[in-house]
C-alpha cells in the first residue's frame, strides 16, 4: 500500500469563521456531516489517500481555525504547503469580500510562489444565496485560482474540489517532486486530460 503512494502533499484549508471548512474536510475524509460542528481550535489535521489519474497521493490536510483569536497561529501552517483551499460562504457576502485579506496572508507567509490555490464557494444547498457563481468565478480567474461551488451538506463538489486540486499539483513540475526523496521523478501522466465526466460541470481549470 505504502509502495504505491506517489507523494505526500500538504494541503491547507483557510477562510473566515463559520464558512464550513471543517465540514468540507469531514465530508471529504469521513463522508459525514454534522450541522452542530464545534468551532475548530487552533488547527485540525487529517490524512487521506486519494487516487488521481492512477496516481495515489497521500494528503496531509491542515484545517485551520477561522476565528480571529486563532489567526496568530496560522502563519506556521503555510510553510511547505503545496495546495491551499480558500473557502467562502455563498450566503454571506462578507466572507467573500474578505477573501482579499486571505490572499494577502497567503502571499505573506507562503514559502513557495507556485502553490496551487482553489477557491470553494460553500453552502450552495442554502436558499438565501448572496454571492453569485459568476462573481466567484471572476474572482478566481483574476487571482488565477481553481474554482468550484460545493456543499458539504449535500456532498456536491466536495470530492471534486480535492481531486481537482491534487491533479493540478501533480501536473505542476517542481512543486512536489522535491518532497519525495527516494522515488525517481515519474512524469508519465503529463497529458492528464481524461478527467471524470461528473466533475466537468463544476470545475473550470484556469
Amino acid at each position, binding site marked *: 500500500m505504502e509502495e504505491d503512494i506517489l507523494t505526500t502533499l*500538504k494541503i491547507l484549508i483557510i477562510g473566515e469563521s463559520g464558512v464550513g471548512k471543517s465540514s468540507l474536510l469531514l465530508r471529504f475524509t469521513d463522508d459525514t456531516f454534522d450541522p452542530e460542528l*464545534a468551532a*475548530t*481550535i*487552533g*488547527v*485540525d*489535521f*487529517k490524512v487521506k489517500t486519494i487516487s488521481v489519474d492512477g496516481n495515489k497521493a497521500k494528503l*496531509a490536510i*491542515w484545517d485551520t481555525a477561522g476565528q480571529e*483569536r*486563532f489567526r*496568530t*497561529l496560522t*502563519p*506556521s*501552517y503555510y*510553510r*511547505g504547503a503545496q495546495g491551499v483551499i480558500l473557502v467562502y460562504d455563498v450566503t454571506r457576502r462578507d466572507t467573500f469580500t474578505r477573501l482579499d485579506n486571505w490572499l494577502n496572508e497567503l502571499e505573506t507567509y507562503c514559502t513557495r510562489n507556485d502553490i496551487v490555490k482553489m477557491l470553494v464557494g460553500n453552502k450552495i444547498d442554502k436558499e438565501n444565496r448572496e454571492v453569485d457563481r459568476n462573481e466567484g468565478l471572476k474572482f478566481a480567474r483574476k487571482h488565477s485560482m481553481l474554482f468550484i461551488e460545493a456543499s458539504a451538506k449535500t456532498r456536491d463538489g466536495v470530492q471534486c474540489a480535492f481531486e481537482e486540486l491534487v491533479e493540478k499539483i501533480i501536473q505542476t513540475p517542481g512543486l512536489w517532486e522535491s518532497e519525495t526523496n527516494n522515488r525517481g521523478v515519474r512524469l508519465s501522466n503529463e497529458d492528464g486530460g481524461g478527467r471524470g465526466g461528473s466533475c466537468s460541470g463544476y470545475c473550470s481549470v484556469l
Partner: protein
Amino acid sequence: MDPGQAAVSMQDESDGKAAAVVLGRALSEPDRFAYAGLCGICLSQLFPEKEQRSFCTKFVEDLVDWLDLSKSVLPAMVAFASGLGGEGTDTFTKLLLEDPALKSNPTVVTQDLVSFSLRDGFYDSRSRVLISHVSWLLRVPPGTLEICEESLMQSLKQHTEEPSESVQASRKKKESRKKLKRYLLIGLATVGGGTVIGLTGGLAAPLVAAGAATIIGSAGAAALASTAGIAIMASLFGAAGAGLTGYKMKKRVGAIEEFEFLPLTGGRQLHISIAITGWLSTGKYGSFVAPWQSLLHSSEQYCLAWESKYLMELGNTLDTLLNGLMNVVAQEALKFTILSGIVTALTWPASLITVASVIDNPWGVCLSRSAEVGKHLAHILLSRQQGRRPVTLIGFSLGARVIYFCLQELAQESGSEGIIEDVVLLGAPVEGDADRWEPLTRVVAGRIVNGYCRGDWLLSFVYRSSSAKLNVAGLQPVLLKDRRMVNMDLSSVVKGHLDYMKQMDTLLKAVGIKTKECRLGEQSGLLYQPPVIAAQQESKLVANDSVDTGPDSSWDWEPVTTGRDSHTVEQINCCSVKGCAGNETGQRCRNCANNNDCPFGELGGASQ
C-alpha cells in the same frame, strides 16, 4: 488533602503568586495551543525515531489534557509530534513570547512543564531533554530548569511530610511489595533503613534553594501536592529510600567481585549523575572518588566503585610503564607518530614490545570485567534502584567502557528508554564503528559525548593486535549521524592516557559537564537573581561575619566521606580574602571561579 484546598493554601503561602497555579488557566486558548504545539514539534525534532513515537504521542496527549485543551486538537498535536507539517518552532515560540502572562517571565513554561512531567512520579529523561530544549527556545536563562525542579521538590515535600494514616497504610503495603520485588530482582541488596527514609520519599532535607519555592510560583506544584504527592516523591526517588547507596553486593554477581555506589555529593535532586573511574593508582588518585572532586553536574552524584583490586593493579602497571620502562623521549615520539595518523605503518619500539606482557595482562582482565560491570549497572538502572529520574553517566578510560557496555545492554532490553539523559565517554577503549554505536541512541535522551585524543599511544598500543585497532572510540570521532552524538577532540588537553585522570576538571568543562566552578559562574551570571535569596544572604552575612557563607547554599554540599574512602576534599573557603588564589595543594577555593578575579570579592569585603 483535597487538591483544590491545597491550591488555595499554596496561593496564600506564595503571596498571590497565583499566576502560575496551573498555566493551563493563565494562558489564552491560542497560546495553550501554541504551547502544546511547540512541545509537539520539539518532540518530533528531538526524538524522530520510530521507537520513541509512543512516548511522543503519549506526551502530547497528556499535555493537551493537562492544559485543558479540547480533545479536538489531538489529531493536530499528534501530527506535530510525529513530525508532520514541519512548520518549525518559530511561530509558536514568537506567539508564546508575546503572551502577556509569559512576556516578562517565560520561566513559568519551564515550571509548568516540570510539574507536568512529574505528575505521576515518573521523570523521564526524554521529558527533561524536551524541557531544556523548550526553555532554550523561550530564552529562559540556563539553570532555571534546575531551580524549578528544586522548588517543585521543596513544595512537594511540604505537602508530603504529614501523610494521612490511610496513605501511610497504603504506602506500607506498597513498600513491602517493593521490598519483595527488590529481593527477587537481585536478591542481594540491603534494605536497611529503607522504611524510615521511604516515608519522606527519601528526602533528607538539604538546605537547598530554600527561598526558591516561593519565588518562582511554586504554586504549580500545588496541583501535584495532593495526597498523590507522597507517592510521586517516593516513586521519583526510589520507594525503598535506600537508593543507590543502599545497593550493596552481598555476594558475587557473575564474574564481578566488587560493585558499589559511593556518594560524591550528598544532595537530593531530580536528576542524578554517576561517575565511573577508569583505574586506580597509588597516591593522590588512590580512590574512586578522587578524580571527580570538581564534578557538580547535579547535587546528587555517585561514583561507582568496581573491581578495585584489578583497577589498582592496572594503575600500578600504567605508572610503571609510563614512568619507568618507557622513557619520555620515546613516549613523545610515539605520540607524534600517532598524531600524524599513520597508525598502520607504526612499528612499536622494541623496548615497548618487550614489556608488552606487563600491560597486556591487567588490561585484558579489566577489559572483560568492565564489560561485565557495565551489564550489571544496566540491570540496576533498569530496576530503578535510583528512582524514576534521569541519570547522567560520566566515565573515562575503562569507566567509559563500563558505560558503553551498560548502554549496549540497555539497548537490548525493552522499556529502557527514558532512563539515561546524557553520557560522557572519555578515552573509551571500545570500538568506534558508527554501526555499533547506533543502538545507543535509543536509550540516551540527551547527548552521547565521545571525548577522544588522537595522540593517545597507550590506547593505540593495547589495541595493536586487536582487529579493532583502527577504530577505537578513544582515538577518533565516532561518525554517527545523530543529533545526540557529540565528538570532542581533547588532544590539546590530553597528552597521554593518564591525563584523563589528571586533567578531569578541565575535561569536564570542555565537554559541557557542570563543575563546581561552572555553578558559581552561573550564579554570578544569573539574570534574575531572586531578590529574596539575595536578601537572605545579606542578612546571613550580617548575622555571622566569621562564617563563610557562599552565595549559593544550594550548591554547597559537603563532600561525603565514607568509611572505606579516606580521601576527602579539604574545606577551603578562603573567600573572605579578596583575590584569593587557592591554596598550595593546587586546589582552588570552592567559591572562586578563578584565581585572579574572585567573583565574591565583594562578599568577602562585606564580611571583613
